[in-house]
C-alpha cells in the first residue's frame, strides 16, 4: 500500500489544499464557529460540524472551539490561525495589532498560472487577512508579549517580503519597549512569487534576531503544524526556546520531496514534533490547553 504523504504544494501555489484543513472552507467555518453563541449551538447548521482528520470524531465547531480546537477524543491539534491563537494566549483576548497596513506587492510582475497581483487581489477579496503574518502586542497573565503569528490560509503561510518586514518591525518594537518576542510558525515555506526576495527574508529576519539577542530579550519560537522550508531554515529554529505543539509536522524539506529522493516510505512519526524533540531540536512540546500557562511561567522565569 502506498503511503499517504501530505504536501503543501497547492497552498504554496495559492490554491485550495487537498485535505479538509488546508481548504479555505475550513477557515471560513472556524470563523463562523467563533461567532456562533453557545445558546445557538443546537441550531448549528450542517456546515458547522468538524471532523477530526485523525480519529474521525465529529463535533460542532462550537464544541471544538471550547476545546481550543483540540479534538476532545484523541487530542489532535486542528490547524488554526492568528485570530484563534491571540484569543487563546492574550489575557481576555485583548491585544493591539501592529503594522497591519503592510501588504504584499507584485514587484516582479510574477505570473504562473495566474498573475501574482491577481492572486493577491482574489485572496484579499475573500478574507480579512492582509498577508500570511499578523503581529500583535498584549499581555499574558499580566506580562507583556509581542507575538507574530502566521496564517496558513494566506498562500500557505508563505514567507515573503511582508512577513520579513513585519518580523523586523516587531523586533524593533520589542527592543524599544523591552518586551519579549514570540513567533508562531505555520507555513509551507517560501513565497515563490517573490523569488530571491523571499529567500533574502531568511537573512533579514536573522539580522533582526541578532539585534534582539544583543538587547538580551527572550525570543520564543513556537512551531505548529506545518512548519517547513525557509521558516525552519531561519527564525523558526533560532529561538532561545524552540517549542512545538504535539504532532506538528516540522522540517526543512517537505515529506513529498524526501520520499521522491530516497524512493522509500518515510518512517512513522517522521518529522513530527515528538521526532524533533527526540533528536534534540526542541526544548519542549506543549499541548494547546497548557500553552498560555507554560508561556506565562517561562516569561516570568526569564524576567525574575
Amino acid at each position, binding site marked *: 500500500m502506498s503511503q499517504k504523504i501530505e504536501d503543501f*504544494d497547492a497552498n*504554496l*501555489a495559492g490554491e485550495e489544499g487537498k485535505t479538509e484543513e488546508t481548504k479555505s472552507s475550513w477557515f471560513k467555518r472556524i470563523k463562523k464557529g467563533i461567532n456562533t453563541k453557545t445558546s445557538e449551538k443546537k441550531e448549528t447548521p450542517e456546515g458547522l460540524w468538524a471532523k477530526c482528520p485523525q480519529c474521525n470524531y465529529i463535533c460542532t465547531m462550537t464544541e471544538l472551539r471550547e476545546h481550543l480546537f483540540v479534538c476532545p477524543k484523541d487530542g489532535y491539534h486542528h490547524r488554526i490561525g492568528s485570530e484563534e491563537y491571540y484569543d487563546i494566549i492574550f489575557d481576555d483576548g485583548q491585544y493591539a495589532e501592529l503594522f*497591519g*497596513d*503592510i*501588504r*504584499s*506587492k507584485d*514587484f*516582479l510582475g510574477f505570473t*504562473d*498560472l495566474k498573475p501574482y497581483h491577481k492572486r493577491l487581489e482574489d485572496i484579499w477579496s475573500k478574507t480579512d487577512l492582509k498577508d500570511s503574518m499578523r503581529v500583535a502586542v498584549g499581555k499574558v497573565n499580566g506580562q507583556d508579549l509581542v507575538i507574530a503569528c502566521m496564517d496558513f490560509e494566506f498562500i500557505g503561510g508563505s514567507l*515573503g*517580503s*511582508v512577513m520579513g*518586514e513585519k518580523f*523586523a518591525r516587531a523586533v524593533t518594537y520589542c527592543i524599544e519597549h523591552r518586551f519579549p518576542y514570540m513567533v508562531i510558525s505555520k507555513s509551507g515555506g*517560501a513565497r*515563490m*512569487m*517573490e*523569488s*530571491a*526576495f*523571499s*529567500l*533574502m*527574508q*531568511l*537573512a*533579514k529576519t*536573522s*539580522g*533582526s*534576531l*541578532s539585534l534582539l539577542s544583543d538587547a538580551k530579550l527572550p525570543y520564543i519560537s513556537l512551531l505548529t503544524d506545518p512548519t517547513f*522550508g*525557509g*521558516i*525552519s*531554515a*531561519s*527564525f*523558526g*529554529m*533560532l529561538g532561545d526556546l524552540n517549542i512545538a505543539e504535539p504532532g506538528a509536522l516540522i*522540517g*526543512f*524539506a517537505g515529506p513529498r*520531496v*524526501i520520499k521522491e*529522493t*530516497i524512493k522509500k516510505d*518515510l*518512517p512513522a512519526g*517522521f518529522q513530527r514534533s515528538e*521526532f524533533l524533540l527526540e*533528536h534534540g*531540536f526542541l526544548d519542549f512540546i506543549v499541548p494547546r490547553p497548557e500553552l498560555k500557562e507554560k508561556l506565562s511561567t517561562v516569561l516570568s522565569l526569564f524576567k525574575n
Partner: protein
Amino acid sequence: MPSNANRQFLDFEKPIKDLIEEIEITKARQDKHHLDLGEQINILEQKILDKRTELTSQLSSWQRVQLSRHPDRPYTMKYIQKMTTQFVELFGDRNVKDDKAMVGGFANLDGETVMIIGQQKGINTKMRQLRNFGMANPEGYRKALRLMKLAEKFNKPIITLIDTPGAFPGLEAEERGQGEAIARNIYEMMRLTVPVICVIIGEGASGGALGIGVGDRVFMMENSWYTVISPENCSTILWRSWAQKEIAAEQLKLTGDKMLGFGLIDGIIPEPAGGAHWDYDESARILKEHLVPVIRQLREIPAQERITQRIEKFSKMGFWDEVPA
C-alpha cells in the same frame, strides 16, 4: 580543463562543437598530407571565439541555468587550486562526520591568509556520488560554520564559493536538523567579525546556498543563478508540471543582471567568452582579480561597523505597500 576531444556540449553549443570538429579534421588532414593549413585553422579558431561570445550574449534564463550546470564547469576546488597557494584542506564538523559536499580550508590568496569554503560537485560519475551532487547535509553546514569561526578567531577574511542545487533533502538530514544547521549559519554569518565575501560560482539554490551566503559582499559569476527554488521545482509546484521549467526560470528572474538590478547582489563577475568551462585559468584569474581589492577594502572598515552594515544591507531587501486601512 578537458581537451577538445573530451569536451561535453549543451544543445545550444552545437555550432561550436561543429567548428571544433572541423578543426580536428583540418589538423588531421594537415598531418596526413604534410600540408600547412595554419591559416585555415586560425580562421576556425577565431570563428569559435566569436561563436562563444555570441552565444553568451543572447542566452535565455534557462540556458544560463544550463550553463551553470555545464558538466565541464569549474567547481570550488578548481578555483581554490588556480587562485591560491598553500591550500590546507580542513575536514569534519567535529561532531558527526566529514561532509564531502562541502569543502574548505586556509589558503594564501595574493599574499594573505584567507579561509575559503564552498560546496563541491563531483567531476565524474563516481565523484558526483561521493560529493552528493553538491548537496550538503547538516554536518556540511556545521563544518562550514566551524571553519568560519576558526577564521574569525585568527582574524582571517572568509570567502565562500556557492554551487549547489540545494541542501540535501534526506532522512538523516532531517534527523540531524537540516533546517537548524542552515538557520544557525545564516545567523552566525551575520555576526562574524571578519570580512565575508560570497560568490555564486554555479547554482545558488535556496537555503542550501544562503547557508554559506551571508556576506559583506555577494557576487554572482556571469553564468550562475541564484534564487529561492530551482526552476524545475518551482514549475512542479506552481505550474503543476516539470515541463514549465523554462518559463519558471524566466519568471524567477534568477540571473545576475536581474539580481544586481534588484539590489540583492553587489556585482557580477565576468567569465571567459562562452562560459567558465572554456578557460579555467582565465576564470580563476578574473575571480581573483575581483576578490583581492574587495578584501582590502573591507579590511578598512571597523568590525562592528561592518557587522552593522551587513545587517542593514539585508534588512533593506524586500518590497511591499503600506495601505492605511
